[in-house]
């Protein structure tokens, strides 16, 4: 069953299809063209429905938004507007940039097939040994944790909030309309995590194989025992790895092509939400309203780190690969082999040319340094807004 996706991926991609995030038919469902058109139509429909809801929220004079002062009102409006932008970009991308996505999955299938063939060669001809579900879960554990952990947390907090919070017309209206958007954004975020996780797995695989090569060569150079044209063998393998790296890099570029806008929009909206809610938190403390809905930012606080952690763990693979590559000993004990080092240099130059930087539209590299910046800027804006509060309060009421 090498051709198919494994169960976990299959299931989750189905989920994303239902949410209208994944516009491609899965391998194994017949009449792909029709499925594709259906999916497109479905995501278009979702987009229209949700934006309609948002417009209603923004325009109606029911208090979907915080009415009691101007600033709170603006903040709520901001939340809605940004999530609307995010929705727009998400569904537009789902409908428009399927080419890159298809390419991504095609390459993924190709690479995993190659790996399986290699494994079969290694393990003799025990062909098509079915991959057990448990091993799949193990394989995708990071993704699963980040998905279900935050999901559980969100739901838990919501339930607690409903228990504790004195129900207020504004809150009920607001959260009943805003929560779905939050969930959508969050699931999209996890979809990015899934793709990056796949990338990371490929890279990790590559690193492992290079490590093996390095081991071989070290062994050969230390003991001087190696079979005929061992260097040639190493060189062939390296060439193969170069092709693999090329494909992985293409996967990466496809990922960026497929998701860049929505990555930007989703992160931005989450960020705005966090900043705004922090303001609200301080504000509610400041004017002693019994209002706990700022506790809902806790999951949001985790979402950005979850994304950034995935992308970082993708990006740190690259220097490791280079490290393993340069660990290959060129002059094996029996025969020094100039072509091999030529190959190594070529590979490392290739790595220099094809860096793996996950940056949404090149705006900023999404690694943990971003976290520090985000934290600091949130702090600063909080300080500004807090300084605003007294002036506002005696101006507006």
């Amino acid at each position: 069953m090498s051709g198919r996706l494994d169960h976990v991926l299959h299931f989750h991609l189905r989920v994303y299809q239902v949410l209208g995030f994944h516009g491609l038919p899965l391998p194994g469902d017949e009449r792909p063209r029709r499925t594709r058109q259906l999916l497109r139509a479905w995501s278009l429909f979702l987009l229209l429905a949700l934006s309609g809801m948002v417009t209603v929220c923004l325009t109606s004079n029911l208090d979907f938004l915080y009415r009691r002062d101007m600033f709170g009102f603006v903040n709520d409006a901001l939340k809605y507007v940004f999530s609307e932008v995010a929705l727009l970009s998400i569904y537009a991308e789902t409908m428009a940039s399927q080419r890159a996505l298809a390419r991504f999955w095609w390459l993924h299938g190709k690479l995993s097939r190659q790996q399986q063939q290699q494994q079969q060669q290694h393990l003799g001809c025990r062909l098509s040994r079915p991959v057990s579900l448990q091993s799949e879960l193990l394989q995708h554990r990071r993704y699963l944790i980040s998905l279900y952990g935050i999901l559980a947390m969100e739901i838990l907090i919501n339930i607690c909030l409903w228990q504790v919070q004195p129900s207020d017309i504004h809150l009920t209206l607001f959260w009943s309309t805003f929560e779905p958007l939050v969930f959508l954004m969050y699931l999209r975020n996890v979809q990015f995590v899934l793709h990056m996780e796949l990338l990371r797995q490929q890279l990790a695989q590559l690193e492992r194989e290079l490590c093996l090569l390095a081991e071989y060569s070290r062994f050969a150079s230390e003991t001087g025992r190696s079979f005929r044209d061992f260097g040639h063998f190493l060189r062939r393998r390296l060439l193969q790895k170069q092709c693999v790296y090329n494909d992985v890099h293409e996967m990466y570029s496809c990922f960026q092509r497929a998701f860049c806008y929505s990555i930007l929009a989703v992160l931005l909206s989450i960020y705005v939400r966090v900043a705004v809610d922090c303001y609200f938190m301080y504000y509610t403390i400041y004017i002693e309203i019994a209002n706990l809905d700022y506790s809902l930012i806790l999951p949001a606080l985790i979402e950005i780190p979850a994304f950034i952690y995935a992308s970082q763990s993708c990006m740190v693979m690259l220097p490791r690969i280079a490290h393993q590559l340069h660990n290959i000993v060129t002059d094996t004990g029996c025969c020094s082999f100039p072509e091999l080092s030529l190959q190594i240099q070529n590979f490392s130059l290739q790595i220099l040319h094809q860096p793996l930087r996950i940056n949404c539209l090149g705006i900023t590299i999404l690694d943990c340094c971003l976290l520090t910046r985000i934290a600091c800027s949130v702090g600063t804006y909080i300080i500004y807004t807090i300084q605003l509060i007294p002036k506002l309060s005696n101006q507006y009421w």
Partner: protein
Amino acid sequence: MPQVQSESSSESAVQPLLQQFQLLFYISKIAGILPQDLEKFRTKNVLEKSRNGMVYMLAMLIVYVLLYNVLIYSFGEEDRTLKASQSTLTFVIGLFLTYIGLIMMGTDQLTALRNQGRIGELYERIRQVDERLYKEKCVVDNSHIGGRIRFMLIMTFLFELSILLATYIKLVDYSQWMSVLWIVSAIPTFINTLDKIWFAVSLYALKERFEAINQTLEELVATHEKFKRWLCGDQETSSRALDSSQPPEYDSNLEYLYKELGGLDMGSLKGSGRNKVAPVSHSMNSFGESIEASDKATHQAPPISVNMAHESELSNASKVEEKLNNLCQVHDEICEIGKAMNELWSYPILSLMAYGFLIFTAQLYFLYCATQFQSIPSLFRSAKNPFITVIALSYTSGKCVYLIYLSWKTSLASKRTGISLHKCGVVADDNLLFEIVNHLSLKLLNHSVDFSACGFFTLDMETLYGVSGGITSYLIILIQFNLAAQQAKEAIQTFNSLNDTASLVGAATEMDNVSSTLYDLVTTTMLTPTG
């Protein structure tokens, strides 16, 4: 750039890029942006300096400045009343901001005057590059650049007219004849936009040159893959090796899907030429060039498979070395041209960025003021109406962002050349070729085309991050000061603290003067503990 056109344009030598610029040139000549000679351009498509053009241009500049001052004066009366009545803060900011546009226009025109000779050389160099590329059998066609220019011009007219008319109809009282002067208020942005269209289109042309180089390399790769497969006729076995291990319906699905999705995928992987060309709509999303490139590769695949599959250039290194060398030299030449162009336009770009930053902030701030029913300087009356504000903001920010985006894409395209080069090396594994590839890729690593505004900041998307941060924080600060000013104003009746208001006023002005530094405090000074 598909093969067909190359065939057609093979006998006719490469036509110069400037042919496409005719419309733009005439318009900007009339508007007095370019001093170059009109006759020379019409006859043989070259930009040459001419004294008459200079005189005309200077005259235009002076006229513009005069008109603008008259405008400011004539619309200034209410400002004076406003200064007495309303918060002086908004007044002073407004007075400062009104001249930014003028400064920007002056910068553009004076720079154009300064390097009127060098622009011609620039396009001459581009033409030489085209010829060299043509020698290497990769043909760049400039046909759709003209369309691009037209599109941009139309957009500019649309924006300017909509802003102008909307403001004039809604917010200017056209009872007294002075109000006709309002048209003048659109001149600086218009001229600036024209100037930037020159820059943007030339930049785009450079980007296309880079893409042409990449595409040539990709073609080499594709050809060689076919060649190898043709050489060792184990095509079906290899494909079996891929396909045997999977259920048939999945395979057919995939085949179908990729035919559906514009088959660059199967195309550049399996080199099979049975695909559709990508629709143009896809070719502009980010990394679009790769799509185009490989599309072209697959597009001209059939002739390969028919006649020229039997030899591939990558097979003998000595022959391909020459070609790769030339391509690298052309690449480097294009990088140099990019640097030169950036150097020519550095001051206008800097002024444009400063202008964009200030105007964006100011417009939002005045919008806020308008919502608080405070009166705002008369030249920014467009801020009274949120709809017009949105248009104006999208116009201004569109200019800045498009330039930044384009330069970013260009540098990306220039970096992709190394990747394609390595593909060549990997596909034809041959030690001689590997040595060549190493050598050239070392060279390519040192070719740098990065656009910067006077070395203050580079024009890539990173800048947007800083700019947006700056706009937000300064907006917040301004609003803060404004609120304080309001309170002080209320306090005036009870207790006379004139100092305070004035100081606040000055505060905001001072701050705004200095705030033309693009990076904000958040990103530069304190909040980036990044390595």
